[in-house]
Each structure stands twice: as structure tokens, then as C-alpha cells.
């Protein structure tokens, strides 16, 4: 191993040591007798250890701040101390590997699912799942949305075989807790109340550059799943007819179609 690689590896371990540079140093058995002072120059203002510690602090707090920005509602329900502890463990389990801070929160919801901190807020992992989706949808790929005029221009004979799609950035999430109202309350700086338990799906999508989300009922969730997997319009109508029960399937399909178009959700399949 080159001298430079040894130095970078050592500094990486010290900067990311969970209990600080001092404890990190104690674990470095391969260091010469002079220890860190033989490697990093210290002076009467700052020791070698204190200088590395500046980087250790910046590492943690830069990532903590980035995660606070991406997960404001999760932070609100867990509180500062719990969120701090969550992030401490998270960075050990999932240290950043990507060049952009955009990715640093990509595993937080999964990590939170098994973390003791969620005992006081069992809905927190679902909340973090939606918040992460909001970030991903915000930066997701663009596609031109279909508008009512382009739909009206389709010949009646072409409708049964018509294939539609949904915005490539859109996500449909399966959740166990109804967190959307809580998230909206935090976004609007209102008081929030804990989420109720209830399996459901939520759509997160982008209209122009604004990220939106809303709960889906079973019929719409199934219909959108059919759209996403490339079903023809006739097949989507069948899904709606089966799910709709006593509802008029044509009216139900029309309502959904009108809403999807208004939402800017549909693209050419």
C-alpha cells in the first residue's frame, strides 16, 4: 500500500470514528510511538488531534444538516436528540459512497424501520419513506405530460389498444401508516398529530417542478399499477370494472382519467 493510501485510510478512519478522534486513535495499533503527532503537525494553538477533530465534526454535522433538510417531518416527530442518535448509527451502517449529498439519505427509512428510536413513533419509517420519495421525485427524469386535447385527438378505434404511462419520476408507495396528513402539517408549519395505522398506497409525483403526494384508494392504485406495467387501455378498464364493485366502471374510468390528466401524471406509453 502506498504511503498516500495509508495516510488517507488512517484519516478516513479517524474522521469517521463514532466516538471521536481520540477513541479512533486508541484503536490504531499500527501507529508508531509518536502517534498522530508524527503525521499531522500540531502547535500550541491546536494539537494534531484537535486538527483532525475539526474534520470529524464537519463530516458529521454536514451530513446531519443534509439529512435534517431532506427529512424535516421525521426530525419533527423524533426530536433533535433522537434524530441525532439515529444519524450517528445510520452513518456507521450506511456511510456515504456517492459523489452527491443527494444520495446520503437513500437508506434512512430502511435503517429506521429496525431502529429502537421508532418505538416512540412507529409511523416514523413510513414518514421517512415518503420524505425520501419526495426528494427522489423532485430530481427524477422529465417527461412531457399528456393533456386533454392530445387525448381527445385519439381516434375512438385506437383507444382499446392505447398504451399510456405515468411520469417516470412518479412513485407509488405501499405504507402501513397514514402519514400524508402529518407530513403536510409539518410542511405547512402546523401542529401535527401522530399518524393512524392503516395499509394503503400513496402516489408521489411531480407536476411541472412541484412535488405532490396523495393517498390512493384500491381501485385507483390497481389502475395506476396497470398503467405502469404497460397494460392497454382496455385492460386498465377491466381492472377498474373488477375493483369498482357497484360503481359504473365507465364513469369511474372517466373520473380517474380526468384526474390523472389534471395532475399531469400521464405520458405516452
Amino acid at each position, binding site marked *: 500500500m502506498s*504511503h498516500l493510501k495509508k495516510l488517507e485510510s488512517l*484519516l*478516513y478512519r479517524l474522521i*469517521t470514528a463514532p466516538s471521536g478522534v481520540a477513541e479512533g486513535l486508541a484503536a490504531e495499533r499500527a501507529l508508531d510511538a509518536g502517534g498522530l503527532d508524527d503525521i499531522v503537525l500540531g502547535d500550541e*494553538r491546536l494539537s494534531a488531534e484537535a486538527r483532525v477533530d*475539526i474534520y470529524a465534526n464537519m463530516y458529521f454535522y454536514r451530513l446531519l444538516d443534509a439529512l435534517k433538510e431532506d427529512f424535516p417531518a421525521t426530525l419533527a416527530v423524533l426530536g433533535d436528540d433522537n434524530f441525532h442518535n439515529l444519524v450517528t448509527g445510520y452513518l456507521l451502517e450506511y456511510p456515504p459512497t456517492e459523489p452527491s449529498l443527494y444520495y446520503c439519505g437513500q437508506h434512512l427509512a430502511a435503517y429506521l424501520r429496525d431502529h429502537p428510536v421508532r418505538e416512540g413513533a412507529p409511523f416514523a419509517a413510513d414518514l421517512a419513506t415518503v420524505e425520501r420519495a419526495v426528494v427522489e421525485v423532485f430530481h427524477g427524469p422529465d417527461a412531457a405530460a399528456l393533456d386533454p386535447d392530445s387525448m381527445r385527438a385519439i381516434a375512438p378505434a385506437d383507444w382499446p389498444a392505447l398504451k399510456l404511462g405515468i411520469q417516470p419520476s412518479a412513485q407509488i408507495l405501499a405504507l402501513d401508516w397514514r402519514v400524508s396528513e402529518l407530513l403536510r402539517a409539518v410542511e405547512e408549519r402546523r401542529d401535527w398529530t401522530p399518524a393512524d395505522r392503516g395499509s394503503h398506497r400513496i402516489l408521489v409525483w411531480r407536476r411541472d417542478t412541484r412535488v405532490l403526494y396523495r393517498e390512493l384508494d384500491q381501485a385507483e392504485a390497481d389502475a395506476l399499477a396497470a398503467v405502469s406495467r404497460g397494460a392497454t387501455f382496455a385492460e386498465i378498464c377491466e381492472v377498474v370494472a373488477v375493483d369498482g364493485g357497484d360503481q359504473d366502471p365507465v364513469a369511474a374510468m372517466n373520473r380517474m382519467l380526468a384526474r390523472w390528466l389534471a395532475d399531469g401524471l400521464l405520458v405516452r406509453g
Partner: protein
Amino acid sequence: MLKRRDFPMLGYGVGLRRQHYSHVLETRPSVDWFEVISENFMVAGGRALEVLEGVRASYPIAMHGVSLSIGSTDPLNRDYLRQLRDLARRFEPAWISDHLCWTGVGGRNLHDLIPLPYTDEAMRHVVARIREVQDILERPLLIENVSSYMAFADSTMTEWEFISTIADEADCGILLDLNNIFVSAFNHRFDANAYIDAVPAERVVQYHLAGHSDHGTHLLDTHDHPICDAVWALYERAARRFGAVSAMVEWDDNIPEFAELARIADRARTTFETATHTANREPLKKTGKPALPADHRA
């Protein structure tokens, strides 16, 4: 050999930050150019790219990265470089810059600018990587001096010898951050003026002007304060030595209103004119590359 005159003189710009997106797009304020953080736009789609399209239609830009990690002993991240190259092909920046440092090792990223030891080994390592990066990006790279809080016992040269040798050997440009020189000079007790006087003048293509915070024992490069008088004095010294160099105001925390940033950029212009007038130089003749019309780009 790379020369500053190979690059346009963009004038006096500011860093494009999210807080000012709407203001810039709606009012097209009078500022010469924008520097953008490359990684913020290395995304699939959405508002960031839409904003950059709008800004680029009216202003020249330079792309400034934070994650190239040119000094890392990890292999170069070719996916990252391809994305960077594609972004540059799309938005045609006047140049691309990143920092003379490392940001991670072992496949992990510290998201911080960690200094290198100033050794022959590190110098040769970085030179080889810059050459490779320039080939992939299909254009020269500017390397920026970083603020640092630690220096290494193994270093065998000064920081200005290190960056100058690398720039000469790799044939790349230099983005001289005058605040970083001031911060590191305080933290490591070297002479900031000696730094300005030593770097190869023809390779200095851009300046950063920024503020820092004073922690008593050390200065921290926080970009959250006004530019201090001592950094303005370094800028005057640099202006007299290097002549017309594109300058940019960098502010990343406690970000003021855009008008304040534009005012500081204007101060950079008048400071340059005053400093160079005293030295009987030619007045600045702006040769900034005009922004491309939107329909000339994919």
C-alpha cells in the same frame, strides 16, 4: 501550454444558489456570470436543470465541482466523470473546476475537502489523474487551493510550490481562492503574500472571494460572513500581479439578498480597476463569452 488568455474573461460573478433561483430567473439581475456547483445539477431532471437552462440562456457559467476527489488513491470515478462531461456538453460552461484535495477513500465519501501532503508522491499521483480527467472531460481543468486545518509532517514543499508544480506538470489552470489562502496562512502560519507572488500567473484563470469565521485558535472557511479587509487586500495584490482575472463571490450559509452579492461582485470590479490603475495597467476590457441562445442547446 495552457494560458489564461485561452479562456474568456467573464468579469465579476456570483455563485448560483437555490435561495436566489426565482429572483435570478424572474429579474435577470445585472451580474456578469454565475458559477454553479456541478453536483447539484448531475440529476435526471426536475427544477434544478430547468433553472440552469434558464440561467444559461442569459449568462455565461462556470461549473465548479466538490467531489472529483483528484487526490484520492481510489480509482477515478468514471461514472461521475461521464456525468460531468455530459453536463458540460449540454450547458457549455466557460470552464470546469474542482479542488486540489481528496474527499474520500475506500469507496466512501467524506463530503469534505481533505488536504494532501505536499510530497513528490502526492504531486505525481495528482498530475497523472488530472491528465486523465482532462482527457475524459475533453477540456482543461482548473484546480482550486482549499482551506485546510491540518498540515502533514511529511510535506517537503510549500502549498504554493505544490499547486504550481501540479498545474505546470499537468498543464491545467488554477482557481485561486483568496479567502482559502488567507485561512490556511493563518492556520499554518505561512505568508499569504508569498503565495500570491509565487503561483504561475498565466495559469490563474479565476478567483474565489469569500468570508470565513474566526474560532480563535483557527479560521474556518464557512462562506457565511462578508469578505474581510485582509482578503480584499490579497485580491488587490493579486489584481496587480495577474491583471484581469474572472472573479466570483462565494456565499453558502446565512446567504444574503442577491442584491448584496451583486454589490460585492461590483466591489471586486472597482477594486480591480483601482488597483490596476495605480499600477498604470490598461483598464479592464471585458471579453466575456456571450451566453448562447437557448435554442442553440440540446
